[in-house]
């Protein structure tokens, strides 16, 4: 399938020409197709944030190219501007960026800037609010009256309302309790299913990417060092640990069981899959 977004030999150097000169990403090649759900992991300082900020033209490459539907997004200012509507970026702690008087106005801000008709803006605001479970009666409230989790949903809805073809979320669940994490991720999955668009989820939680992504990209030291299915990536536990990451807790249990001689796939990464394998081992059908 034709990739929707491609990155070729992308390099970004901060503070060039000063003693603090540092390449946050170096020579990255990456392509993502329509409808993919990709998890992006890497330790702090690995270059994740720098990388994703190039994908919608917030940062300009020091070298290399970023192309949306085959066209370099820096071809002209107009194209760079348009890319920001096609590729929506939800920052870390986006609730700190709310500023409008009502939830409705905040969510409508993006679509309004796109120059859409009033009815279309209204439709998008209500649909986006629906996806993230914001109740109708909250739309007229000040966003600052809402709880942290609700505010974050408002911020996410503001990006969804632009109906970006590629949606990038930088740690959308950071700081939320387990129930809050689960519901936001379920909403995103629902959105992904309904719209069929591309989603990039940056996360520090191996469990989170294991459960939701079909493909995982691992960054380390300014480069992409792994790119594959969760099973492929999580079968490289030692390498992941060496670069400051890890595997889901379930995978660690599976690895121990495998070492102990049970016929369990050591790269199992969901609780459900491990449970099924273990139950099939009962009654002498499986050991060794």
């Amino acid at each position, binding site marked *: 399938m034709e990739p929707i977004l491609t990155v070729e030999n992308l390099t970004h150097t901060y*503070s060039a020409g000063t003693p603090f000169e540092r390449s946050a990403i170096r020579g990255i090649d990456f392509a993502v197709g329509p409808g993919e759900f990709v998890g992006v992991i890497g*330790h702090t300082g690995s270059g994740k944030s720098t990388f994703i900020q190039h994908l919608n033209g917030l940062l300009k490459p020091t070298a290399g190219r970023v192309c949306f539907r085959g066209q370099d997004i820096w071809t002209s200012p107009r194209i760079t501007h348009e890319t920001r509507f096609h590729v929506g970026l939800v920052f870390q702690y986006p609730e700190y960026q709310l500023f409008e008087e009502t939830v409705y106005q905040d969510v409508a801000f993006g679509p309004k800037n796109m120059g859409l008709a009033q009815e279309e803006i209204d439709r998008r605001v209500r649909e986006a609010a629906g996806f993230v479970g914001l109740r109708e009666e909250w739309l007229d409230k000040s966003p600052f009256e809402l709880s942290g989790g609700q505010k974050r949903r408002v911020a996410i809805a503001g990006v969804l309302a632009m109906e970006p073809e590629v949606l990038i979320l930088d*740690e959308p669940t950071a700081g939320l309790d387990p129930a809050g994490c689960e519901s936001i991720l379920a909403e995103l999955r629902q959105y992904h299913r309904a719209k069929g668009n591309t989603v990039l989820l940056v996360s520090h939680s191996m469990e989170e990417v294991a459960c939701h992504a079909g493909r995982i990209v691992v960054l380390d030291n300014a480069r992409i060092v792994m790119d594959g299915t969760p099973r492929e990536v999580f079968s490289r536990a030692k390498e992941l640990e060496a670069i400051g990451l890890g595997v889901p807790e379930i995978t660690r249990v599976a690895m*121990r069981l495998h070492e102990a001689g*049970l016929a369990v796939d050591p790269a199992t990464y969901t609780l459900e899959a491990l449970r099924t394998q273990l139950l099939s081992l009962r009654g002498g059908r499986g*050991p060794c």
Partner: protein
Amino acid sequence: MEMLKTERLSFAYPEREGEGQLVLKEIGLTVERGSIVAILGHNGSGKSTLAKQFNAVLLPSGGKVWVDGFDTADEAAQLEVRRRVGMVFQNPDNQIVANVVEEDVAFAPENLGVPTEEIRTRVDDALAAVGMANFARYAPHLLSGGQKQRIAIAGVIAMEPECIVLDEATAMLDPQGRRDVLETVRRLNRERGVTIVMITHHMDEAECADRLIVMNQGEVYLDGAPREIFQRVDELRAIGLSAPETVKLLDSLRKEGLDVPLSAISVEECAGAICAALKAEEKNAPKGNETEWNQF
């Protein structure tokens, strides 16, 4: 001997007062000197509000809080309270004040009037303790989130407080960053006897604590050893929390009739318990294939 103590502690944020919206409801707690206590609770359960009572950032609306015997509501004692309890918050950007890393770490000891030479040693020690010694001359804004958080922790370590309260201090960190911070606080606890209070959403962090307090709707809902509390899978789920993945796996196997204990929290214990249970079933099975198990 207790480091922290609350008695019938109630709190309402001023703008909500009169609406009967108590964020904390008559909380009575003691935290023993030298212990590691984790506080869990869903968003809005009151755990951060409770944490802020421990060094007089917030003062009780009702009841009392004592820090090493000092009443936090006594204005004359507030310096003593803050000298004893260091706070680390979630977002490092809100905690860093200086333009150079080592100056930021030196900020608190300077304010406490520590002699210059000692400040030098304390700053170097603190930066080494969080693995950031090589960044002493950096500008904080050039560091990553995890690095900045370690600077914030170094700033607290340099105060040499008797108690450190971490309010979701690892929420923005990657797995290695979290391991570093956890290892750092555990070492401070072990080697210097620093009392640690960790507010967290991460069950695996809570596992390291001696004691776990679960907050729900402004009250202490559960209080005990992590091993005991994590077995209460359904109760935790009902208040928006969850048990560690290991316990959830054991719970799901138990529901299928496999005899595994929910107390096997760590990965090793969990794997061991599953092996043992499968083995035992094999032995007791009427037509089991024992030869295979003997090889195992």
